């Protein structure tokens, strides 16, 4: 039996960029098994949980990075160390690293950057050489560029206004890169679609959808794929390039 429900304790909760917070939570993390999975957090006064992607985890802690963009996440931003959160752990399929080849490209856009971190660590541990591209709108939104560099991997940043890194979109960086074997990406849907069209390589794309339950029961986040109907929360959020119907 899976025990999805875990009462996590906030260890730290700090602002790392505009409207962007990094929260470290402690508790049992055995249900988190694959990079690209998410956790679903219950908040006092809100009926539905907040699905947030896992940025990193070890045996006793999980790190998430979230944007305060609505009433729920704004409440999360006010939580102090010691606060407890009823959380469903290890949801979604996550990224399959067996298909990556030796030099996969990792592309994160905005709130889609965090899951790339655990994925990069996993790929490195498998002896692969990932290259990462992080896309943001402007300098004040940039986060985790140094953390990726600290993993010892080639890291590119693009900003729409050119305030940091390459001016333009992540696809402008992709256009200059060669030799990558596969791609993994997470970010806003227009970015996913642009990447899908910008490269011949095969890859995996992590999607967002408004969810009810987050664990496959309500059919609130269904999408059509070439492999049949899928639930973004349970059969996804990661879909293979070949199955996507835009």
């Amino acid at each position, binding site marked *: 039996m899976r025990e999805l429900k875990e009462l996590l304790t906030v260890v730290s909760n700090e602002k790392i960029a505009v409207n962007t917070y990094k929260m470290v939570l402690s508790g049992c993390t055995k249900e988190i098994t694959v990079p690209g999975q998410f956790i679903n957090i219950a908040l006092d006064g809100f009926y539905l949980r907040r699905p947030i992607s896992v940025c990193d985890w070890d045996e006793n802690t999980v790190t998430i990075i979230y944007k305060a963009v609505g009433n729920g996440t704004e409440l999360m931003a006010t939580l102090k160390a010691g606060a407890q959160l009823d959380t469903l752990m290890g949801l979604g399929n996550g990224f399959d690293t067996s298909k990556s080849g030796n030099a996969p490209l990792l592309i994160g856009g905005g709130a889609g950057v965090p899951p790339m971190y655990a994925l990069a660590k996993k790929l490195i541990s498998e002896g692969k050489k990932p290259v990462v591209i992080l896309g943001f709108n402007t300098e004040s939104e940039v986060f985790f560029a140094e953390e990726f560099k600290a993993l010892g991997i080639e890291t590119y940043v693009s900003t729409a206004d050119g305030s940091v890194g390459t001016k333009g979109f992540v696809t402008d960086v992709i256009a200059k890169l060669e030799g990558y074997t596969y791609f993994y990406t997470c970010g806003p849907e227009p970015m996913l679609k642009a990447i899908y069209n910008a490269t011949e390589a095969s890859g995996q794309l992590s999607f967002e959808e408004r969810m009810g339950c987050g664990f496959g*029961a309500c059919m*609130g986040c269904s999408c059509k794929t070439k492999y049949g109907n899928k639930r973004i929360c349970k059969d996804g959020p990661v879909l293979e390039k070949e199955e996507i119907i835009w």
Partner: protein
Amino acid sequence: MVSTKVKLCSLELDNPVIPASGTFGFGYEFAELYDINILGSISLKGTTAQPRFGNPTPRIAECPAGMINSVGLQNPGIDAVISQELPKLAECFSKPAIANISGFSVEEYVECCSKADKAEQIGILEVNVSCPNVHNGGMSFGTSPEAAAEITRAVKAVTTKPVFIKLTPNVTDIVSIAKACEEAGADGLSLINTMLGMRINLKTKKPVIANKMGGFSGSAIFPVALRMVYQVYEAVKIPIIGMGGVSSAQDVIEMMLAGATAVQIGAQNLVDPYACKNIIESLPGVMQEYSINNLEDIIGGAH
């Protein structure tokens, strides 16, 4: 030692707690989380004659103490339910389940119900004439006593198992529809389905739900559901499965006092996948707290 057993038509349930249709899939995925044989029964995902993808997304909107869904009866169709979903359920659930059937015409209800009736695992047919999320179907049959009675008669003519008609709250007088179903031969009634609702996104200034409106459920609607069960109980003799915002053992008892023989848990399953398990486990203790020895004795006790 308290007894949580209830008799629902021909079925003896270990307890009155049943996950509501559309919040529990076809059950087997929850068997990864706990032994689903502790449930009284399971009301399976709403099924139609043909496979349906359902409505465009977003299908979900959050509300104070509840949520709106506009799934639109996504399901693989009755034939796939019988050939693929029921066998998977049989591997982890040994009790009779409830088939929840929707349609777009009398003929479709008849076809679907007669197929479900023949499935050994199905103990009750729950005929959904109340889905607010599909056009020209579902709810339109449940908003007039004549149409609801027509469906009831047609389904009863081709089935052998107890037929429960699932009613919508989106009507002026639910009692007249309940009575029409009873007179047409219904063996029981399920109420209530979701209430038609909507939210508007202040940033886009457009409806949150792609289909604009959807079914509002969750603890916010409990008092409305309870009131309707209470009213219908006074007007009919057939058993009622009460539902609508039930989220605790206390709510189950309240619903039974209003007149429900069994109780379905809906939206609460979506915020807590262990909701039914927790309710079933806490029920005996809550019964003792209120000096209830036999749950069956309290049905309609508030009247």
